[in-house]
Structure formats: structure tokens, C-alpha cells
């Protein structure tokens, strides 16, 4: 289960995620990102309600990061210790900008 809330302010887009980012839910997020990323220069993921990220979720984040590297910035916020651990193990801590 994943609840995705979208806050759009001009070229600044924020996704507030609630639930689990896994094989089943990652495609939903991927679609949302694809559908709204045109013209965005500042992308923000708020993970305060996110309990779980699997490699399927990491793939979405990596692909978003690649896109944003070409046209602006991307930030991941409010990451729980458990998810931070995943980012550390996979080297994502160095790729993503985590606040």
C-alpha cells in the first residue's frame, strides 16, 4: 500500500509518501513521477510516512535522480533510520541528497 500526495508549486514538485515502496507500489510512483516531471527543477520526496523501501523503490529513486541530474535538484527528506540503513548499504547515501 502506498499513498502518494503531490504538492506542485511552479517548478517545485513535492511527493509525500505514506506506506510501503515495494514491487507492487513502485510502478505507481514511477508513473506519477514520469507524468509530472516535465518542467520541474526542484524535486522533493518526503519519506516521513514511508516504512519500507525495496530495490524496486530504489530503482524509481535512481531513475528520478538521473533525470534530475540533467535539469535541477532532487532531495529526499525525513528518512527513517531503517531506510537510511538501506541507502548506506546500497551506496545510495552517496548518490542521493538526503536531508
Amino acid at each position: 500500500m502506498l499513498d502518494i500526495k503531490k504538492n506542485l508549486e511552479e517548478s517545485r514538485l513535492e511527493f509525500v509518501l505514506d506506506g510501503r515502496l515495494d514491487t507492487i507500489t513502485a510502478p505507481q510512483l514511477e508513473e506519477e513521477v514520469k507524468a509530472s516531471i516535465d518542467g520541474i527543477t526542484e524535486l522533493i520526496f518526503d519519506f516521513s510516512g514511508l516504512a519500507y523501501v525495496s530495490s524496486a523503490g530504489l530503482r524509481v529513486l535512481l531513475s528520478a535522480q538521473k533525470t534530475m541530474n540533467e535539469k535541477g535538484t532532487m532531495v529526499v527528506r525525513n528518512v527513517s533510520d531503517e531506510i537510511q540503513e538501506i541507502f548506506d548499504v546500497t551506496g545510495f547515501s552517496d548518490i542521493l541528497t538526503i536531508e
Partner: protein
Amino acid sequence: MNTSWENDKITIRLEGRIDSGNAAAVESEISDALKDHTASAVILDAEDLEYISSAGLRIILRLRKKFPELRIINVKSDVFEVFEMTGFTEMMTVEKAYRRVSIEGCEEIGHGANGSLYRIDKDNVVKIYNNPDALDDIQHEREVARLALILGIPTAISYDVVKVGDSYGSVFELLNARSFSKILGTEPEKLDWCVDEYVEMLKRIHSTVVPEGKLPDMKETVLSWARFMQDYLPEESGKKLLALVEAVPHDDHMIHGDYHTKNLELQDDEVLLIDMDTLAVGHPIFELGSMFNAYRGFFELDHKAIESFQRFSYETAEKFWYKTLAKYLGTDDEKVIRSVEDKARIIGYTRLIRRSVRRGGLEDKDRKAEIDHWTKELIELLEKTDTLLFENDLEDTNKHKDLDIEAVEDNLDEVMAYVDENLEAVGCSMKAQMQIDIAVEEIFVNICKYAYHPEKGRAVVRVEVSDDPVQVKITFIDHGKPYDPLLKDDPDVTLSADEREIGGLGIFMVKQTMDAVEYEYKDGSNILTLVKNL
């Protein structure tokens, strides 16, 4: 006239002809014989009686007035006809002379607690009783076998009583039958089939309700063993043993009492239970106790000894016993199987020690070593056991049942729920739980995507939790294409986002976060095992 006393029981041998010519003389001879002692039971042995007229019959009637339990035995067939025509056979016990049967050169095909079974010809077998005064035993066995048959247990009922040397035997029809011991000994590839049939019969016995009072209560018997053991165990262990047996509730289901592979016969396609004299009612743990002895208990210090008894090796016996327990309990969970086995061992050792002690085992060096071994094991078991009932063990196993599920991504949530439910039981940290979840998701999704592609298939997920060390082991089994995901190269996690490829992270994460990951391809199955220390 020959008479013999045994305690207060007198046997009077009747000879030749008894008619109006000598009836008075015979009668006074009998009363002379009874004059000096008070007889509680009178048996007339008619082995040498050639003829009896109504004058003779009247003597017997008068004698029976004084001794209502009067029995006439060894009656020749001509004489038996007279007793039958005159209605004597309905008034009192009149037993025919027994046919004599020799077992010289006959094959021993069965062996039980109270006797041995020999094949005397193609269609018939005779069971010879150890007890020389076995007529009551034979009668008992015939009655219980009849009862079992009526209650739906396939068995053979004896149709004749014979004399074999000084022993009594009962004769059964048993055509082309082979015992399960013989099958296991000669056709080891049939082991699984034997287990299936053996367990099916066992379940049939244990699901049979016996009308009250028809069979002895096994609990009483085991209680008497436990009381006997008080002198041979430390006080605390003795008390525990008695309390454990006392706590077993009354059960009116049938148990065989000596259920091992020599007592199960395959006749054509039909499986028959034989050796019914130990039939009782009681909780199945009592049965499992005696079964443990037949395959393991008796032979724990002398593995070779089983071969002369069962005709198969100790290794076969161990395997057969373990598989039987697994099948009977309906679980592959070794922990549960061993826990139930331990309860059976308590009953088994108790019986073995008592039996050996009573047979003078303490005076013999080898027997004494066995008694010491059984006693040591028993004391240890008693320390760690709180109940002989095993229903709760089985409840635990139901919780830990494998998940057998179609390998499609839509089932991921169900797999996760199954794994998390098992993890909750051990209580594991959020961090460990997430790592395990991630690993489970990776492996399961991998199976969904690749194992059967483009077809669909199933996957089995098994979660096993152990206490020492605190550890969870998760096994995934699929029957798809052989594929070892561990061979995949690890991604370079130092690369920048632009250099990194999307994907390939999953297995890497599994390897990083689990304490052991193993892959095996066996019997057409991919088996992947994750171990995480908690």
C-alpha cells in the same frame, strides 16, 4: 482314575467307557478324590474317554451342582457329539480335543509380546503362545479380534485351537501374506509406501471409538509401570513420571499396544493387522511409546540385535520410525517431530527398564548397561518435559506451515504477511524485519519474473525460527529453470548516479543484509535459503 491338583484346582482324567455298568464306581472314585481337599475348580480331562452314556452324564450333572464352573476338556469328536446332542455344550464349557500341529521347519513370520506366528501351510498360520496355560489368552485374543473386526479394523480371526508341543496355538487363515518387516527387509525402495500404509492403519486404529469396558485402559497399565519405577529412579524423577502419566486424560479410542511392522501383513492388496491380544484403549502417546521401542529403544545399545527381530537394519528402522512420526503428525517440522518423540521415549524407556529389571537385567553386565543408559535418558527427558500430550506441539507446527503459493507478483503481500507473522512470534527489531522483508521480496519477485517465464508456476516459502542461536531461516523452493541468482556480479556501489545502472541491486542487498545466503539445485527444484541472526 488319575487326578492331579494344582493349588485348589483339580483335574480328573476320565478313562474308557462310562455307562450304567460302572457309573456308580466312577462317581465314588470322584468323590474320594475330592474328599481330602476343598476344590474351587474341577476340570474333567476327557482325552482318554471313549464313550459316555446317560448314567455317566448324570454323574457330571450332579458334580456340576457342587462346582458350577466345571469344565470338560480334550473331548474326542465322537464323545463331543454326545455332549452336543444332549445340550451339555450349552450348559457348561465342553472343549474338543485339540488337533496337534508341528511347526518343525516352518517359517516364523511374526513375533509379538505374547507369542510367535508360524506359517504351517500355504493358506494357514498358527500363533503359538508363550504362556503354557494360554487357553484364556486365546479366548481373549479371539474376542478382541472379533471386536476389532466389528469396529472396522481389518484383522484375521482364529478358527481353530491346536496343540503345538506343550503349548497352545490358534490357527488363522492368512493367504500369500507378507509382513511389512519382510517387505522393508527385502524391498527397501518400498519404504515410503510402507510408511503410508502403516500410518493409515495406525490412524484408523486411533480413530476407532471402543464401547466402554470392552478393552483394558492402557493408562492403568502405564501407571503401574510408573509406580514400579519409583524404586529405580531418583525421587524427583519418579514423582514427575507418575504425575505426567496421571495427567494424561482418559481416552476411549483404540490402541494396538504392539504396533510394529511384524504385526502388519499384506495379503494380496489388503493390509491386515494381527496379534491383537494387546489391544487397549488410551491416548496415542502410549502407542507411540511402544512403537519407539520396536524401532529404536530396544536396540539403542545393540544396533545389530534389530536384524534378528525385524529383519531390517537399525538405519532402516530409524528412517521408518522418523517418517512414520512425520506422516502421523502431518508435519515436516523436525523440532515438532523430535518433541513428540521425546514424549514417546518417556513411555518407551519406562517400559523397557521395568521389563528388563523384572527379568533380572540388573544381575547381567550387558543388560545392566542398557538399564543404566535408558535410566539416564529417562531422567534427562523427565527434567525437560511438562506434558505427555502432544496436541500443542502440533498447533505450533500449524502456525509454521509452509506457504505454497502461485509465484505471481500479486501474491507478494500474502508472502510478506506470512513471513511477518512468523517473525512477530520471535520478536525482531524493525531494522532486521525490514532487511528480511527486502530480502524476501527480492527473492520472491525474482521467482515470479524468471523461474517459469513465460509460463506460471508455484513457489514454497518456509520460515523456521530457532532459539539458540536466535535465528530465522527462510527457504524458497521453486520447480522452474535452474538459476543461481548468487552468481550475478555485485553492482559497483561507489559509482555516481549517472554511471549506475538501474537494477541489479536486489540480490546485492540480500547478500549484504543476511548472515548467510545459499543456493542449491536439487531434484528439479531451485532451493534458496536465507539465514538472519537476530
